[in-house]
């Protein structure tokens, strides 16, 4: 079994899916000859040709909109939005159509579409290249949203997303693209859409998170175990919608303490939804209020401020210590 990073894992998965099923087509900006700005589609244009790896005009609404049509028309399109900060012209397609076609057609049409979106910060990117806008996608009925935080999950969730009969937004944490390698098998990997992953078992406090923040949480958990004997459990949601509230509840019922960690701004962030689910499902087990560690409610700043904007190890460790001190 080969060790690989997330970019290679996603690239290999796309290649396998395209070889397996002639209906799978890729479309997006620079996905063809250039292999994508992050090289995720490297080599696919050479292998499968320009009719299946389609370099599109710069038009995000038409990328998602035409992919909706392709999906209804019998293809299995995988659209790429180059950065999440460029998704917004396509929001009308996502809000108005992508998740509504099933209901509006009384189930006659489904939209088996995957939209891949590199997202998130912490990589000294230019302005508006680091957004984390998952909450508004999760708020949209009729779609699914997944975020792998390991190369293995990236492969498994991409298989699941492409095979899903309904539209799936596939978020790729940019910071994790080349951070960490792990063994990923050739061929199909089974990671269903839905179940969260217990990334680390622990007894004292649950940290619920996703995407790149999962790695921050792991580092903090190791530090605190070593230096303070604190046992942190980490829930990597992996699927944001539909959310695995059962695994969250199970963990919090065990530890009695919960911290939600995300790199998106705080207000109306997805953390609020996680906190609500804990309140509904694990209130009587709580020993302390649920805390949120998030970015501030400011536009993603130029990168000189980035290290203060993104949640830090210090802030997460502080929140964990406070929860245990209550």
């Amino acid at each position: 079994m080969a060790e690989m990073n997330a970019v290679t894992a996603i690239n290999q998965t796309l290649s396998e899916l395209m070889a397996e099923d002639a209906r799978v087509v890729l479309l997006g900006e620079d996905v063809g000859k250039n292999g994508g700005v992050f090289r995720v589609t490297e080599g696919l244009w050479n292998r499968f040709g320009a009719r299946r790896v389609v370099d599109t005009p710069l038009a995000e609404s038409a990328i998602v909109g035409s992919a909706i049509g392709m999906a209804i028309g019998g293809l299995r399109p995988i659209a790429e939005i180059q950065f999440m900060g460029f998704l917004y012209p396509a929001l009308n397609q996502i809000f108005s159509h992508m998740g509504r076609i099933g209901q509006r057609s009384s189930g006659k049409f489904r939209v088996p579409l995957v939209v891949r979106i590199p997202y998130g910060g912490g990589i000294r990117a230019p302005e508006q290249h680091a957004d984390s806008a998952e909450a508004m996608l999760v708020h949209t009925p009729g779609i699914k949203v997944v975020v792998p935080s390991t190369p293995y999950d990236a492969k498994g969730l991409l298989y699941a997303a492409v095979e899903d009969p309904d539209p799936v937004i596939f978020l790729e944490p940019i910071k994790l693209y080349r951070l960490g390698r792990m063994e990923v098998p050739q061929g199909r990997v089974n990671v269903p859409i839905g179940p969260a992953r217990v990334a680390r078992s622990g007894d004292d406090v649950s940290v619920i998170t996703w995407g790149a923040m999962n790695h921050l949480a792991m580092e903090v958990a190791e530090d605190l175990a070593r230096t303070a004997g604190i046992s942190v459990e980490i829930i990597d949601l992996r699927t944001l919608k539909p959310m695995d509230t059962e695994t969250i509840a199970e963990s919090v019922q065990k530890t009695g303490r919960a911290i939600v960690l995300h790199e998106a701004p705080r207000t109306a962030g997805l953390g609020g939804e996680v906190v609500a689910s804990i309140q509904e499902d694990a209130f009587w087990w709580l020993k302390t209020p649920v805390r949120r560690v998030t970015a501030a409610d400011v536009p993603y700043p130029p990168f000189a401020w980035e290290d203060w904007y993104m949640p830090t190890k210090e802030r997460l460790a502080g929140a964990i210590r406070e929860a245990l001190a209550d």
Partner: protein
Amino acid sequence: MPDAWPLYQVIGPEANHPDRVKPEIAVKIFNDMVLLRTFDEKTINLQRQGRVGTFPPSLGQEAAEIGSAWALEPEDWMAPSYRDHGALYVHGVPFSHVVLFAMGKGSSIDGVARVLPSSIPISSHLPHAVGLAMAAERLNQAHIAIAYFGDGGTSEGDFHEALNFAGVFRAPVIFFCQNNGWAISVPVSQQTATPTLVQKASAYGVFGARVDGNDALACYQVVQEARARALAGDGPTLIEALTYRIGPHTTADDPARYRPLEELEQWTGAKDPIVRLQEYLEGLGILAPGEALRIRQDATVFVNQAVDDALNSAPVEIHSMFEHVYQTIPRGLALQREELERIHGAMAGKGGLHG
């Protein structure tokens, strides 16, 4: 200087294209135009009686709606806007479903028709038509996609993105724009600074055609030609059909607030698309004397039946709201459904809140 965008006409003294429509098709087109007019008048009355919700009639646009749709094959994809029930009907959607939609009781599409749900946000369905066409072409299927929209729709970004995409990929798609003069209360002169809408085709390297939208046979032929071009691999066509919205935007507005009566009068009477086609077909002897009257009487019976079917439909049930959102309902959503059924289920059994 010759007009770069001559108006394609088949009927009338200024006809510039020969009539290539088979007489039996011409009669069917006339029949469906009468049906559409009858249906619109009936449904407007239903709305006034409070039996259906807001309704957008297509009074005056029967030639564009019906003529264009008759040029399609059943396998062609149709991406309509909300005022296209005439085209939907020709493509296989029963009028009863249009009434159900106006009653707030669900989808306007049904049966075997390759028709997308009517798009409400303006022009947002144009990219779908491009994608459907690209899929057909990639799957080696010999059919096309057509999108219906209005003059106001040409101001939206999705119109421009869709035409640009279609041009670049030479997608077998037809953009059928009914320029009916008004986007609710705003005239076309305030939508664009260009003298025509069709000339926007040039900017995207796609074929453009301007047609008399009140000439049903011209609409039929111009779409047929665009379809043949698309299937031959010659790419998309933007069609501007010049017509007029005789009625309101929907039953919720009053055109007298924003539109001069004299303008309306120019488009009724001799310019009425049904009158024009009837006189033309009678002149050729394709419609026998008295046949038009019989068609109108039959239309009333037919439309009444379709309306009754919808009005007599079963009340909606709670679970249908959840049923098709996902192919398999996720656990959390099933819990929300159960909660509603637990609290409101008994009421639903008696006809529901809106029975």
